[in-house]
């Protein structure tokens, strides 16, 4: 590249910019190198293992040959369920957004209640402890029976999956407000809503975000499974549909997307937590 630039006579202008960028590029390269090597190794192994004729699973080359369309055109829409992966993911993300928002609001509210009130704690905590062990999919039939429709049932499953860690972590955070902060609040007579907003909530915020982060991960786990059962547009059903039509390559591509999106969701919540708690 530098040669092209030199030939065009922008040498003096390009030098400082490139000079400043170069160390950063080298650092980024060093940091990413192990990952790239690992990826090449893994894909190579996969190719070796699945590349033999008669293999049950497709090798990377076959996945690319069968399903490169899915990667290259994520947003095509041929009507019905014949849509690009991007659109399926978008439908799933919408469900997660609604279910998770409800879980966050309800979970923080209930967590604050259980964390601050001894009576609420005695009454509710045992119930939470039992209900939170119910696997997400076990809620699906009962929510289908209650809502009689796929969409609200899926959202309910997200909600009921994500709400427990939010409740429990919020309650722990509220109870763990250090005595020092409580004493400061008492000396300056900070009470009621002011105490809640200025001391309790900020002190509990790191715990709340831990709960939210666990919750978003569980939401993503649950939505894929729930969509397999309820059908319609969504990445979960896409995978199930691909299985039924023996498009194993499509499944492989979809799994990669599911993993990447789950990773991004986790990082988004972590980032939001970092912004809000400002490293406290």
């Amino acid at each position, binding site marked *: 590249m530098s040669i092209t630039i030199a030939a065009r006579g922008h040498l003096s202008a390009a030098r400082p910019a490139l000079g400043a960028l170069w160390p950063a590029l080298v650092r980024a390269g060093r940091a990413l190198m192990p990952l790239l090597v690992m990826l090449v190794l893994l894909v190579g192994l996969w190719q070796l293992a699945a590349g033999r004729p008669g293999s049950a699973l497709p090798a990377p080359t076959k996945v690319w040959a069968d399903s490169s369309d899915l990667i290259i055109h994520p947003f095509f829409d041929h009507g019905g369920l014949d849509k690009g992966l991007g659109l399926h993911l978008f439908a799933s993300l919408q469900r997660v957004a609604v279910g998770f928002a409800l879980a966050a609001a309800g979970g923080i509210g209930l967590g604050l209640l259980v964390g601050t009130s001894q009576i609420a704690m005695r009454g509710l905590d045992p119930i939470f402890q039992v209900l939170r062990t119910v696997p997400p999919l076990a809620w699906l039939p009962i929510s289908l029976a209650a809502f009689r429709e796929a969409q609200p049932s899926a959202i309910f499953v997200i909600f009921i999956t994500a709400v427990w860690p939010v409740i429990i972590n919020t309650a722990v955070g509220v109870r763990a407000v250090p005595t*020092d*902060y409580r*004493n*400061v609040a*008492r*000396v*300056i*007579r*900070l009470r009621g809503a002011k105490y809640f907003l*200025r*001391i309790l909530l*900020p*002190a509990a*915020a790191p715990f709340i975000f831990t709960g939210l982060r666990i919750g978003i991960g569980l939401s993503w786990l649950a939505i894929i499974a729930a969509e397999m059962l309820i059908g319609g547009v969504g990445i979960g059903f896409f995978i199930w549909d691909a299985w039924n039509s023996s498009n194993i390559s499509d499944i492989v591509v979809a799994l990669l997307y599911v993993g990447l999106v789950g990773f991004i969701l986790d990082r988004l919540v972590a980032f939001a937590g970092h912004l809000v*708690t*400002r*490293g*406290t």
Partner: protein
Amino acid sequence: MAFLSVSDVSIAFSARAPDVLSHVSLDIARGEYVSIIGHSGCGKSTLLNIVAGLLRATTGGVLLEDHEVDSPGPDRAVVFQNHSLLPWLTCRENVRLAVDQAFDGANGHPRRSRAERAAWVQHNLDLVRMGHAADKRPAEISGGMKQRIGIARALAMQPKVLLLDEPFGALDALTRAHLQDQVMELHARLRTTVMMITHDVDEAVLLSDRIVMMTNGPRAGIGEILDVGLARPRNRLALAQDPAFIAARARVLEFLYSRHRAPEPQAA
């Protein structure tokens, strides 16, 4: 009538445990600087917390200007041992929160406007020479600076009594000396009544008008009270050779290490 009067205070943390403090009485005059010294675990913080209103005495009580202390309040500002700044607020916001509360018109002081409160916060930050780092968060400044912000927060409430719980205990010797000088200077300037807990004999003698020496717990009480009687302003270098300083120091050391030695550490 004493300005601050602790009368016959006893406290037990449970009905079955022995009293931690037993029949403690102490009168402090307005503007006086009193140190409480005693071995770790004898009940110094407990006594300070009772004066602050954070703990209730089992029997006996505390009077401040003839009013009974029954709850904490900004007229008895506390500087806690481990600074206790709120980490999600900047230094300025930490002081500001206390000022907003103390001057909201319902906590003893007349109400002040937003601008007046902002100026008062700045004034107190400058007082402890922390104006330059006011917008940093506690995690970004040193231990000594945190303690200075804690002192600014307490002073900014214009308390009747300043309660210091081992304010310099966690600091290195140089920082500690520096802060001691600052506190002496502030006390000379503001004439605030101070009750300070310490386990440092030199610190107690250097800063105090009187030193209250506590016996070991349980059922700890006041063993002896020493009038320091050194002229102010005091200079740590000049005092190092001063016979009165040396005598006072010896007296406290003798109390702590000869007559009331630390109890053997018990297996936890």
